[in-house]
Structure formats: structure tokens, C-alpha cells
């Protein structure tokens, strides 16, 4: 088992999660994660862990742009709003899970792009120097950015949670 295969087995799930939190499409996230490792096989990077997350971030960015283009295209094709999948009538716990998911994604979306990137890279398991290398920050600034991102994430989540509870009561 070579280093890349070992990295694949240990970091595949982290890469999928990292991608999913950027594009919010589970299947596409898995596809892109495999694409990342296939590219790594061809390039054989010196620092594979940082490399795969850098490529994953680029792919996620491209995917987001493509999604925007697709959405614009669909909007042009059809004047009516794109019908969203209506949630099936579900049990109370399912509704609660969806609301929780919506609060977390909303809180994450409330962060600045840099804070969000640093937070997701940290959650994916990258070290401070690796995060610094990918984001262009100084290593010493990663801790500051991460502290701010965590605090704002929790604050945004708690605010949304409070608003939701107020609306229900």
C-alpha cells in the first residue's frame, strides 16, 4: 500500500464531507472526491494531503460556478420558478432534523468566505500550516481566523435557533 492509497483510505470521507459542505450535493461530492484522488494518482504531489484539499476546493469552486450557470440556463429556459422538491410528510423527528440542518447550513452561510474555508479545512483535518498554505494566510493568523469563525458560527446558529423557537411559540 503506497502513501496515496493510505491517504485515500484515511481521508476519503473527510474530502467528501469537505466537498459536501461546499456544494451540498452528496453524490456529486463523492464523484468529485474520487476525481481528486484520481488526479493525485497522476500528479503524485509531494504534500498529498494539502494537495488533495486544495484540488477539492478548486473543484468545489468550479462546481458552484457550473451550478450557477445551470440555474441561469434553466431560468432562461423556463420563466416559471424551478420547482423545488417538496418534502414528504414526515414524522416530527424528521422535521426537526431538517430544521437543524437548515440552521447549521444557514449559520455556515453567514460566515465570510475566508472564515468558512478555514473552518472547513480545519474540520477536514488540515493543520494550521496546511490551512495557511492553501488560504494564503500567515500561520499565526489561522488561529485568529479560526477563533472568529467558530464564534460567529455558534452565534449565527444560536440566533437562528432562537428565532425558530420564537416563531413556533
Amino acid at each position, binding site marked *: 500500500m503506497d502513501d496515496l492509497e493510505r491517504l485515500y483510505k484515511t481521508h476519503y470521507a473527510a474530502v467528501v*464531507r469537505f466537498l459536501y459542505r461546499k456544494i451540498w450535493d452528496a453524490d456529486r461530492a463523492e464523484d468529485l472526491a*474520487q476525481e481528486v484522488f484520481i488526479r493525485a*494518482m*497522476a500528479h503524485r504531489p509531494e504534500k498529498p494531503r494539502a494537495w488533495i484539499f486544495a484540488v477539492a476546493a478548486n473543484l468545489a469552486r468550479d462546481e458552484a460556478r457550473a451550478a450557477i450557470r445551470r440555474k441561469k440556463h434553466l431560468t432562461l429556459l423556463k420563466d416559471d420558478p424551478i420547482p423545488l422538491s417538496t418534502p414528504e410528510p414526515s414524522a416530527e423527528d424528521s422535521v426537526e432534523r431538517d430544521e437543524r440542518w437548515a440552521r447549521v447550513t444557514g449559520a455556515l452561510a453567514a460566515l465570510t468566505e475566508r472564515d468558512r474555508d478555514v473552518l472547513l479545512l480545519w474540520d477536514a483535518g488540515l493543520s494550521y500550516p496546511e490551512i495557511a498554505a492553501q488560504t494564503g494566510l500567515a500561520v499565526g493568523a489561522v488561529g485568529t481566523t*479560526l477563533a472568529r469563525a467558530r464564534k460567529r458560527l455558534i452565534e449565527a446558529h444560536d440566533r437562528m435557533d432562537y428565532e425558530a423557537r420564537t416563531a413556533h411559540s
Partner: protein
Amino acid sequence: MTEWITRPERHIPEDELHAYLDQALSRSQCAEIETHLSACKLCQGRRATVAALRDRTTALLSGLAPRPVIVPPAYELLRDRQSRRLAIAVWRARLQRAGLWAAGVVAAVGAGWAARSALDPHRIAVAMPALAEAPTAPSTPVLAPVQPDPTAELERQATPAPIPQRRAPLLASRQATNRNPEALVPAPSLQLVSMVTPVRAAPATQTMLAPSVPSNDPFNRIWRVVQWEEALQIAGSGIPFIEGIPVVGVLLQPGGAGERPMVIVAQQDQNGEVIQSIEGPVAKVNELLQRQATPDMHSSDAARTPPDYSETPGGGVRRTLRILTVTGRLPIDSLNALARLATIR
């Protein structure tokens, strides 16, 4: 970094507590922080707050997984996909190279063919036998089936017809119209269509004499049916032809001292009509047109071609004017238009 250690009133900054909990600090930095934490209640509280914040963040983000368990597909599958992709890339590169090579070959062949066609109209007839041998109306004598004895046919064809007396020389007629003293008005009808047969009917080189012509006749020279290359070789230059129409035959009659040969180039258009471009000394062309004149044959206005220069017995230089005319069973306007397309090779 260590300023807060030497100054007891200072406390551990929050970002360093994050880095400490994230294990992003060096061993010595961790030791310093732990030393301070052991003695500072405030920083202990801050540490607990940061740890809770960190844990909550981790918990919130863990809920943003696509599925509870993410199982990576077999590494071998990815390796196979990468191998296939590599193979496809290699083949694509090969195809691109092959495509470029093929395009180059096609371009070279096309350019060569175009250049050869432009330089050698005789090849057009060879390249388009169906066109050159296209069936025509039965009334067209030129398109009759191949004669069993080409030598006899060519000999018959090379024999000029009797000269009708009603036609004045072309040069005189031209001078009478006062349009161009050097140009000539051709005879209205000609018999030239039977002079030349398609190349397929003739051997590569034929040599013949016109037995019915008296020995003092200027046409008592050898008329030769030749291939295009040979005509170029013999005449050097001065082979008239019309661009874009297949050449079906070339007749040459050697000239006198200092004279270029007289040339008749027969070309067959898409309708089966044979058009003949005649180039030679004015007197010979004029006489030939009169000999071959028939009611349905017409000729274009004559155009000057480079004259011949020859030495006279007295040591002077004599200039012999030469003309080019196009004949065929077409209206004169059409022949004039074709004559404007004619070039001298």
C-alpha cells in the same frame, strides 16, 4: 507570544487558546500555556469556554455530512479509472498527431493536384475520363465511338478541307473593319471539329502526312498528334488552351526556319462540344480557317500572340505575326468569351 507569561497581569489570548486546543503549538508553547493555566483561574475559564465553542462547532459541522457513514470505493477502481483515462489521453494525442499528419498529406496532395491541374490541363482529361468520354448527341461527330483504325482516322482528320473562295483573308477583313490592324476576323464556319479526336482514341504519338495536299502547300508539313507533355517539349511555349476544360487532343505542325510550330488544342466541354484553340502564323491560321469552314462552325476574334522572329537572307530580321483563335460549334460571343479565357502555355 510569551509576553503574557512574563507579565502576570496579562492572560492567554483567545486565538492561542484555540491553537493550543487544536494542538497547533509547539511543545514549548504548550508547556508555557499549561504553566499559566495551572495558576490562572480566569484563563482556565476561558479555556473551558473555547473548548466548548470548539466542541459545539465540531458537533454542528458533523451534522453536515452527506451520509452517516462514508465508505470509500475500492482503491483499485480508482486506479483502473486513472489507467483508462491515461490510455484515452494517449490515444487522443495519437489521434491528434495522426489527424495532423493526415491533414498535411491531404493538403499536400490537394495542393499538388491543383498545381498539376493548373500546369497540365491534359491531366484533367485523364483524371476525368467520364467527362472526356461523356456520351453526346449522335449528331456530334467528335463524340462518335472510337475508330477501329486511329491512324487512318487521324490521317483523315489532319487533311485540310478545300479552301472556300468566298472568304477573304482574316487579316484583310480585320483591316477593313479598322478595329485592330493586328487582329483578324475569323471565318464564320469551320470544319475543324473533325481534326482532333479525344486522346483515348489516338496513340501517344502519331506522325502523318496529308497525302492530298500538294507538296508546295504550306500545310504539307507533318501534323503530329501528340500528348500534352510532348507538345510542351516540342513547342516550348505557345500551347494555347482554355482553363478548366479537359484537353482531348493536341495537333502540332512544325514551323519553318525561325518559326514556332502551329498548334491546335482540342478541348471538350461538359456538353460534349469540342472547342479548338488554334495558334500559329497569321497566314497559316487564316488559310486553315478558310479550308475548314462549314456553316455551323464559328471562330472567335483573333488575338495576337508573341510573333516569330527569323533572319532574312539579307541579314535582316523578319517578324511573323501570330494569332490565336478559338473555334467550335458555339455562338461567336461564346467563343469570344472562351478566347478571353485562353492562355498560352
